[in-house]
């Protein structure tokens, strides 16, 4: 191994209330693919933001090619030869691909020349892209390519990738890995951030593991087992939730027929003739890459956007013409993906957030709020779902992602819904809370509730679902029993390669 391209010693960063990074040491050789492994909240993002100059460290030293450097801005990082692909893309929807890439380049350049350069790189690394297209017209995978090419046009010596695969199909992940391996063979170092153990084992030469802001291990992941990596990451074995026997029975709960909705958002996805049937006690997973219509489909089920064509039935009665309030009255509950600002009002107390959708639980009389009932409901949620907060008067935004999610889930579950809809329930949640949430879902189904859960995490869906369908470009695939399909097939479907189905398990396919 050659001398370290990047070396960090004693990097420390304090945020109000959290020590995000506590004396982190890390070294990456040139051409090395180095994994930064850790669960949500372990301090990975803070650390790379410091390397890229977005955030400044309180203490510690960064050496670049052996020389101590102070990275005070992203443009300085780029000048050194550091590129970064963020988890949340930093793209401008109304601008073209070339303009977006141009914005990430500091030196003076000619847009025309840049365009041909983009075409060249996209050819060379197998990242097909049209530089003249507007970003809002691109798929998520294509958007990631824009981010990657934005780095590559500057000939980086280190490429930082923050959770790059969460937006890709399994097949796209393979292609990305090829690109990354090629870059590494050309001498470019890669800092690869992830919490997915199999990816790290497949791709990385070395791994630094973070837990609670500290380095807990440095290892060669290829010599480790998933079990040992998980132990380094979370301090124990990966917990799994316990499945009871199949709870699904033949009673039909939800029927969606030819649901068609043009998206109200010009950058959104239109829903095209969606068909699906969900039975009592069934957990149906909706897989798919973000931005393929999940958001719109869930909002349509909840009644926030109305069907242009087609119908939705709950327990045999049509609900497609009524709004969320009426659907809730008929037993529907919904936990949206966005917790702060949608599932909960950030600046309101937990008790007021219990009132938000829980008002039906005897909290009103003649239009007046019965605050005693509100408080007792909030207290009950907090106790039953182990929500860690300073009390029910704590503001929603003061809770961690996992605790807020448990609160919102609890609020919806305690209403004993017939149908529970979930948008990416464990997004940004630590492993412990994720397991609790999975267990709640499985237990709920065992009691007869039907669950529709949309998620980009295939592992999660295969763990908790009875059946799986895929949404791609606003179309829904046939539904398959989880036991009768696999990651490869679902992955293919995620890229849109399926014939639209009848939407019901059990029909001869």
């Amino acid at each position, binding site marked *: 191994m050659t001398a370290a391209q990047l070396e960090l010693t004693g*990097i420390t960063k304090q945020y*109000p*209330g959290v020590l995000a990074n506590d004396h982190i040491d890390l070294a990456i050789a040139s051409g090395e693919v180095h994994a930064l492994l850790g669960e949500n909240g372990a301090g990975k993002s803070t650390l790379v933001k*410091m390397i890229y100059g977005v955030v*400044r*460290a*309180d*203490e*510690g*030293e*960064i050496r670049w090619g052996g020389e101590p450097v*102070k*990275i005070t801005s992203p443009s300085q990082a780029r000048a050194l030869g550091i590129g970064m692909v963020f988890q949340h893309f930093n793209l401008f929807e109304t601008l073209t691909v070339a303009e977006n890439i141009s914005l990430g380049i500091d030196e003076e350049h000619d847009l025309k020349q840049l365009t041909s350069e983009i075409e060249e790189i996209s050819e060379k690394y197998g990242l097909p892209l049209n530089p003249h297209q507007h970003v809002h017209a691109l798929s998520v995978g294509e958007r990631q390519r824009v981010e990657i090419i934005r780095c590559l046009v500057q000939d980086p010596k280190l490429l930082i990738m923050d959770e790059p695969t969460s937006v890709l199909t399994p097949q796209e992940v393979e292609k990305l890995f090829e690109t990354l391996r090629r870059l590494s063979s050309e001498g470019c170092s890669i800092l690869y951030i992830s919490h997915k153990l199999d990816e790290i084992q497949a791709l990385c030469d070395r791994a630094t593991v973070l837990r609670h802001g500290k380095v807990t291990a440095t290892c060669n992941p290829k010599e480790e087992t998933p079990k040992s990596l998980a132990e380094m990451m979370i301090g124990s074995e990966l917990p799994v939730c316990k499945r009871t026997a199949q709870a699904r029975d033949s009673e039909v709960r939800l029927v969606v027929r030819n649901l068609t909705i043009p998206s109200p958002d010009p950058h959104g996805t239109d829903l095209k003739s969606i068909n699906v049937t969900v039975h009592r006690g069934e957990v149906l997973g909706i897989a798919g890459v973000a931005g393929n219509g999940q958001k719109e489909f869930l909002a349509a089920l*909840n*009644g*926030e956007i109305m069907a242009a064509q087609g119908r939705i039935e709950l327990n045999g009665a049509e609900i497609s013409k009524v*709004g*969320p*309030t*009426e*659907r*809730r009255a008929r037993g529907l509950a*919904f936990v*949206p993906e*966005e917790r702060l*600002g*949608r*599932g*909960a*009002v*950030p*600046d*309101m107390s937990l008790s*007021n957030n219990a*009132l*938000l*959708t829980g*008002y039906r639980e005897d909290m*009103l009389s003649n*239009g*007046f*709020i019965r605050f005693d009932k509100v408080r007792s409901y909030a207290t009950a949620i907090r106790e039953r779902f182990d929500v860690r907060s300073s009390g029910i008067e*704590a*503001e929603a935004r*003061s809770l961690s992602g996992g605790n807020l999610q448990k609160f919102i889930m609890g609020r919806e579950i305690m209403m004993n819904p017939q149908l529970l809809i979930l948008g990416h329930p464990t997004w940004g949640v630590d492993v412990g809370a994720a397991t609790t949430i999975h267990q709640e879902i499985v237990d709920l189904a065992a009691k007869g509730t039907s669950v529709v859960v949309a998620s980009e995490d295939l592992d999660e869906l295969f763990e908790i679902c009875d059946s799986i369908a895929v949404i791609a470009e606003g179309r829904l695939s046939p539904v398959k029993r989880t036991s009768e399909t696999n990651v490869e097939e679902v992955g293919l479907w995620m890229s849109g390669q399926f014939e639209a189905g009848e939407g019901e398990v059990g029909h001869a396919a």
Partner: protein
Amino acid sequence: MLLRLEPRQFTSKRMQYASPLIAAVLTLIAGVILFSALGTNPMVALHTFFVRPLTSLYGVGEWALKATPLLLCAVGLSVGFRGNVWNIGAEGQLTMGAVCGGGIALAFWGDEGPWLLPLMLFAGILGGMAWGAIPSFLKNRFNANEILTSLMLSYVAIQILGYLVHGPWRDPEGFNFPQTRIFGDDGIMPVLIEGTRFHLGVPIALVFLVIVWVFMSWTFQGFKVQVAGQAPAAAAYAGYSRKRVVLLSFLISGGLAGLAGIAEVSGTITQLQPIISPGYGFAAIIVAFLGRLHPFGILLASLLMSLMYLGGEQLQIHLNLPLAVTGVFQGLLLFFVLGSDVLVRYRIRLVAQPKEA
């Protein structure tokens, strides 16, 4: 930079109360500087501005009187502001309230009874509501920005009043002055405290203040307004109708502004004339924010703002300073109120040059 804002983990309850006080103190300091710059002894000027108006019973009556339209408009506006509905046309709704209520007084002139005043108040409220309903309809139906439409309609309302008092409603015995007849006795608010002009409008305003407080703090509909304002996506998720919040906000704020208008003309002015308000509808925006959009805060804020109007008049009479000083003060006060609000959610830290990584 040496000063840095740091988000607080919890909003500071202490700062919620302290920040309006900080703003008031900063405005006082600015006043001292302003008066010094004008060559006036600042202590004398501040005394004239803030204390002198209240040295007589009559003055105290005027204080309450001027606070009344501010209070009514601001309490109404605060409902919308909490719901992220920006009605800034209270001046126009106030004017239309005065026009409609005053129109009733004129229509029954010489043929009246004790039923007249309640009818006028009712017409005033309806007039303000109707004028407020226009921007809410345009918002709900056409997505038109309510800030701009409600403001434009204020200019229209003021011109309509001008048209009426210059034209069809002009007092036939009024020597061509642009004003209407003086309302009949049954169309004038009874004075409650002798030796002052303190009239029935003041307690009526307080009743509405309490009603709005109950509505916002205790009813589910009031809760929905707050959710719509703080997190529109959460309101949509929970199934609260945005359109209803827009309409309701405009009806409440328009109705209360209309009441303020009719209370003003039937209580203080006793006739319609081209100018019936020195900008109460606009000043009420400041009052609403200074009062932290809370009814009882607004009560205090409207008293402060009313004092500033009276103080401005005193400055003009006794120190020969222009009335426009009041406007400058109002603007400064609002700047300071908004600026010191940052302390509620952020902590200001003095930071030494950051230690380099």
